[in-house]
């Protein structure tokens, strides 16, 4: 990089002494929707796991395709007592980065900490069914549940295990913003903490004692960019080896990098304010579905990089055949609106927190399509805090929203977005969906332990949401990353929140 500068020659001479011979991979790992720049607390983070899992470990994790869960810190596990007892056997010989042995007490400590309301962790709700955690010996952890929770393993895939010997001395309340996370956190992952330069970058170094073997590169650097466009430029100029890309970026990156595409697992939808009597009639929600030419939007605006979503569940395993496709039919949409006595002079607002160009184009197109069938909508672009405040209010006054919901391999993650128990302030069911069939299906899916019967339950849920339209689900878009061609064995996929999936970071290398 130095030789590029105006002072090229002088600098080259000056830097001879400092030129490092070690292998370094530099990336913008926290740019894009899965990132959480400078947020290092895995108990409260809901994103940024791509980076956190480089130095922390989880009991279990997904494969890169999110099909199968396998062990990380747990080498095996069994489920007994009708899904109410989970026994994990921990991998032998795992050590924390400071050399202390990793034991079952660390696991118990971490789960108890997450369930303590003072730690402010969203895992508290995921672990609500855990009655107690027992550690009969150093390598065994037994979780006893008050009622079965088939989604527990999925929840554990991004639950980082923390060191008791370091954190027990910090009160849970102070832990949330503790300096420990950003000074010298100790984990079990392939890399260990090296240096944090606030607002600029954070650097990890290889963990020589990693249980799968020492990583091939010596250092891993995560650089921060306020503007995603700046990260793309740095990738193109060769300053960094990886960053998240927008659809438009993929067209300009050209030969500079390999483009990695994957499903976002985020379903985009039009939501209706469930407390507003104007949207109670399901024919209105159906009319909106028929009025939007989704196939054309996907083809023209997304360049084919999105799949239509038939229901609120995106994992193909749980999407049954024979769903209503809601093909583009403006005449039918007009009829439905008339039948539901929609007032064509009524102007409703379509609120969104998306501010990127693609989403703006999409919303303007939707506005035109709805206008053609006699529904006047005005898109309104706000930032995430404004969106949150508007939709979280006790008596929300918004009309429609265009939003995305992180789905994922297990449909249970949608529980809190669609179950009536989770209406704000108790959760994130911001549209105030209250459909008994959907509530029951989520409860049944969580209690059912047989994978086959679970699949049927969620397929029925999908069918019900396709027919009753708690949300008008539109599509699941692809997301992209750009990786330098010098990277070897590099694994990345655009998972919600950044994972966790098995990326074998210890095998990453650079030419």
């Amino acid at each position, binding site marked *: 990089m130095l030789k590029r500068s105006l002072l090229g020659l*002088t600098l080259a001479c000056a830097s001879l002494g400092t030129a490092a011979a070690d292998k370094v991979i530099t990336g913008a790992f926290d740019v894009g929707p899965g990132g959480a720049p400078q947020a290092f607390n895995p108990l409260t983070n809901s994103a940024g796991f791509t980076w956190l899992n480089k130095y922390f470990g989880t009991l279990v994790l997904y494969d890169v395709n999110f099909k199968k869960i396998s062990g990380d810190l747990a080498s095996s596990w069994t489920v007994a007592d009708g899904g109410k007892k989970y026994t994990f056997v921990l991998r032998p010989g795992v050590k924390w980065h400071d050399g202390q042995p990793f034991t079952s007490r660390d696991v118990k400590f971490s789960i108890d900490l997450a369930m303590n309301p003072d730690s402010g962790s969203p895992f508290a709700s995921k672990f609500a069914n855990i009655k107690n955690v027992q550690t009969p010996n150093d390598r065994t952890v037994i979780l006893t549940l008050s009622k079965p929770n088939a989604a527990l393993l999925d929840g554990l895939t991004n639950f980082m295990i923390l060191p008791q010997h370091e954190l027990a001395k910090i009160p849970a309340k102070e832990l949330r913003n503790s300096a420990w996370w950003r000074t010298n956190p100790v984990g079990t992952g392939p890399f260990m903490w090296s240096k944090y330069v606030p607002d600029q970058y954070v650097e990890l170094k290889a963990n020589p004692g990693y249980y799968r073997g020492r990583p091939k590169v010596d250092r891993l650097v995560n650089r921060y960019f306020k503007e995603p466009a700046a990260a793309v430029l740095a990738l193109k100029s060769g300053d960094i080896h990886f960053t998240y890309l927008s659809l438009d970026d993929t067209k300009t990156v050209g030969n500079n990098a390999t483009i990695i595409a994957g499903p976002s697992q985020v379903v985009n939808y039009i939501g209706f304010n469930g407390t507003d009597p104007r949207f109670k009639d399901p024919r209105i929600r159906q009319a909106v579905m028929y009025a939007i030419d989704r196939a054309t939007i996907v083809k023209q605006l997304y360049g084919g990089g999105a799949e239509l979503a038939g229901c609120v569940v995106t994992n193909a395993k749980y999407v049954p055949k024979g769903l209503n496709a809601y093909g583009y039919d403006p005449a039918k949409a007009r009829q439905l609106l008339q039948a539901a006595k929609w007032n064509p002079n009524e102007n409703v607002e379509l609120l969104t927190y998306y501010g990127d160009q693609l989403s703006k184009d999409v919303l303007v197109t939707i506005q035109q399509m709805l206008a053609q069938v006699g529904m006047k909508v005005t898109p309104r672009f706000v930032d995430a805090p404004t969106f949150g405040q508007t939709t*979280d209010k006790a008596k929300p006054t918004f009309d429609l929203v265009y939003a995305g919901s992180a789905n994922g391999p297990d449909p249970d993650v949608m529980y809190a977005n669609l179950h009536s128990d989770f209406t704000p302030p108790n959760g994130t069911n911001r549209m105030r969906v209250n459909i008994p069939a959907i509530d029951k299906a989520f409860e049944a899916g969580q209690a059912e332990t047989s994978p086959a019967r679970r699949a049927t339950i969620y397929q029925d849920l999908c069918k019900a949401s396709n027919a009753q339209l708690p949300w008008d689900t539109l599509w699941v878009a692809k997301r992209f990353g750009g990786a330098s061609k010098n990277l070897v064995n590099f694994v990345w996929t655009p998972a919600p929140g950044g994972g966790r999936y098995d990326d074998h970071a210890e095998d990453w290398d650079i030419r």
Partner: protein
Amino acid sequence: MGIYALRRLLISIPLLLVITAIIFTLLQFTPGDPLDAYIPPDQVVTAEQRAIIRHELGLDQPKAVQYARWLQHAVQGDLGYRIKNGEPVAAEIARRLPPTLLLMGAGMGLGVVLGVLFGVMAAVRRYTALDNVLTVFAFLGISTPAFLAGLLGLYVFALKLKWFPAGGYQTPGDGGVLDILSHLALPALILSVTYVAVLMRYTRSSILEVIHQDYVRTASAKGVAYPRVVSKHVLRNALIPVVTVIGANVANLIGGAVFLESIFSWPGTGQLYLDAIDARDYPMIMGTTLVLAGTILLANLITDLMYGLIDPRIRYT
């Protein structure tokens, strides 16, 4: 002059107080609550957890109490703690201020030197090709917003010509003086563009006003060499309005730096400010406003004191 400076400093205190009160009031009208920014939208947090966090951040207090508390601590030099990560606001600003001052200082230095130089050249060679070219560039410079100039500059000089690194403050793992200078050069040059353009225009017209005065003709008639006439007799008298412009543009410079810092991933106060606004991080926004407003007031004071140095006829009473 000492009493004058002291009086000006004392006047700044109520001024800063009014500024913080206005900003605090405006913040209350901004949609979005710090808690909504603090808790990611897809995160399920129970009502109990929400109440704990709200109480700890002091957001459950009445607005007036929140402001009074903030002020009470601020006068003692304690700007509070960031909502986002609990770090002390003063420490974050102190960490972010040096890169901003470096960028602004370099941008301003380049701007003043080049702006005055080009202004003199354009005035002395009035209506020549040189003057016309410089004038066209000045208008381009004045009318190009900093963020656009930043993106164009990055594209041309970092990506295509590869003369400079594509943003950042240092190469991770290096961070030597030369490394930082190589990262500083491009954003500082771009930041100086508007400054150069504005100063050039002012210097040019100011010199043209002075250059036809009788005492200039007298100096030339006495046989003083032309370069000396320009530097000693013309420039010194022409600089007063220019100094005003230099001072008045510090606010613009800060505005430009806010955008450039984002585009160039420069870890300064400007980026911090935008971050704080995104996160509705009230203590951080208040702290940064206070420091930036203080900087602008200080710059204005320095400008006023400079008059006396340039023109001995000016006295402070």
